């Protein structure tokens, strides 16, 4: 029983399609993911690979007119796909908290930050105004804001980027959610602040035993925080495993290319590895064959599967397509 309730989120065959000029295009294509309690799941990929699409699908914040979501997102037996808005509003902010990328834009410029945190409590708890105020002060302490009483009455523009992100985190964790989705939480911050915010998220997780989905393009963030990693390319998950395996024995060509293009501080002489080409746009995405094939043209077409599937190559380690068996870097072949 204990084991079962550890599963917080079970995403199965999620397809999220956006309407572009009358036609729907899958931005997340057959995504399968699970999130357990006390786990940080990192979703990594380049811009436009569909990682934020997964976040907005989970929390149900997308343009309902121009987005089509199919598949299952199971939270405690409850399917969040197609859930009606008033039920969803009881879950959002309460059971699922969300942290956004740009902490300045994420806060209402005309509202005191304390009130913005208290607003979450107003909709999900029976607290009176005084209790909400005290809880906000408690949260501000928890997220490491100095002089919380004073901060309560400040407006977003009066705070630094790091402090604003702490307010955003306070909003997300106000109701002690079981799931926290952090969409690029450190991208807009200074490097020194980034580490503080990541430490804070880890501390919060230890306290609340929540599950965190960390969406990022920064492999450093992944290495530092994640337990499980899902690597995405062009709307699909191409590799999925625990963090150690992904960093030590990456298999998929894309994962290997990503890791290879990370700057190494101990080796300044070597040029940075660059992955050829760019991520295809949503409209021009190849719908057949290996979507990454175009960016590793020196690998013969015969190496790819016709319809690449996810294979469990070792327990808990999933890789799409079989081309990884024949993959080598171009430089290596020319040597």
């Amino acid at each position, binding site marked *: 029983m204990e084991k079962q309730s550890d599963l917080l989120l079970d995403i199965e065959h999620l397809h999220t399609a956006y309407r572009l000029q009358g036609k729907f295009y899958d931005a997340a294509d057959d995504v399968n993911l699970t999130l357990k309690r006390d786990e940080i799941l990192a979703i990594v990929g380049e811009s436009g690979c569909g990682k934020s699409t997964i976040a907005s699908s989970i929390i149900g914040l997308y343009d309902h007119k121009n987005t089509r979501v199919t598949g299952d997102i199971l939270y405690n037996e409850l399917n969040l796909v197609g859930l009606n808005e*008033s039920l969803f509003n009881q879950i*959002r*902010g309460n059971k699922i908290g969300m942290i956004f990328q740009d902490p300045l834009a994420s*806060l*209402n*410029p*005309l509202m005191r930050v304390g009130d913005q945190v208290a607003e*979450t409590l107003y909709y999900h708890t029976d607290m009176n105004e005084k209790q909400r105020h005290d809880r906000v002060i408690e949260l501000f302490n928890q997220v490491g804001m100095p002089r919380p009483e004073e901060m309560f009455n400040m407006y977003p523009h009066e705070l630094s980027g790091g402090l604003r992100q702490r307010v955003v985190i306070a909003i*997300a964790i106000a109701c002690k959610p079981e799931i926290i989705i952090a969409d690029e939480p450190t991208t807009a911050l200074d490097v020194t602040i980034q580490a503080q915010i990541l430490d804070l998220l880890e501390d919060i997780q230890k306290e609340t035993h929540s599950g965190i989905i960390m969406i990022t393009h920064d492999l450093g963030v992944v290495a530092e925080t994640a337990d499980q990693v899902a690597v995405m390319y062009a709307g699909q998950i191409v590799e999925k495993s625990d963090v150690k395996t992904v960093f030590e024995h990456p298999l998929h060509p894309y994962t290997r290319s990503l890791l290879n293009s990370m700057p190494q501080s101990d080796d300044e002489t070597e040029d940075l590895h660059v992955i050829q080409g760019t991520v295809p746009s949503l409209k021009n995405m190849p719908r057949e064959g290996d979507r990454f094939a175009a960016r590793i043209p020196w690998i013969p077409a015969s190496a790819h599967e016709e319809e690449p599937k996810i294979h469990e190559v070792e327990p808990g380690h999933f890789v799409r397509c079989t081309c990884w068996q024949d993959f080598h870097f171009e430089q290596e072949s020319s040597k």
Partner: protein
Amino acid sequence: MWKTVLRRILIMIPQLLILSLLVFVLAKMMPGDPFTGMINPNSDPKTIARLKQEMGLNDAPWVQYCRWLGNLMHGDLGQSYIQKVPVASLIWDRAVNTFWLSLMSVILTYLIAIPMGISAGRHQDGWQDQSIQVFNYITFAIPAFVFYILGLWLFGFTLGWFPISGSVSDTATGFWGIFFSRIYHLILPAILSAIIGTTATVQYLRTGIVDNKVEDYVRTARSKGVPDRVVFNKHILRNSLLPIAAFLGNTITGLLSGSMIIEQVFSYPGMGKLFLDSIGQRDYSTLTALILLFGILTLVGNLLSDIIMSIIDPRIRVQ
């Protein structure tokens, strides 16, 4: 916030001085002098010269300017060349009329424009939005005087619902009788100028809502589980009203210049009509006073916008 208001009022002092200087120079550049039309042209030039000396017209310009400014401070705007009465008393009654007309017009403008802007922004590209856009094109494109004359003809002459001129009926008696008669005379010009004045407010509000709807902070509010209705009223709408508050000063200036047309069409005895009449009669002293007054009101309008902005937008308050 009080610091912002105080600072803003202090900035107004040099603005007012520059305005008064401009108006003074303008008055000096106008042809003629206070004797034009006042005395027998056959008078002895020596007498005129003596009078000029006595009235201080031979003093250095800056001495004259300071004296004029001093008189202004005491509420003395000089004598009307044509009407032979103090300009201040001539303007006062008209200013009261224009004030009520403008106030009613601005209130009606917002009563009409804000619901329209909200509806258009909320149902972007829906039928509500499209009909409002059509309405906007029409009110923006139609010349004000054509619109006023059409309204006057339809509701005043043809249907006879409203009086067609003046600010109060001669037969009205008693405080309430006069009060209601004034309101009755105000309604048609106020409604017409409100309708034609909605364009900017509707557009600003619509654009504000459309832009704010997709802002990140709105997404944050939704992610907190705040119901859509509250997200709209508390987060989107409040942020979208900022440009309208900023535009208030402009609206007031627009009403003043608009008053010239509407008061002329409705023969409504206000400042705008007085201004046009004074131009026709070359009543320079009245004109000078009116120009000064319009200038001051424009500055006050901008002051009001800034104060309102500083109340609703914490970002522009002085620390």
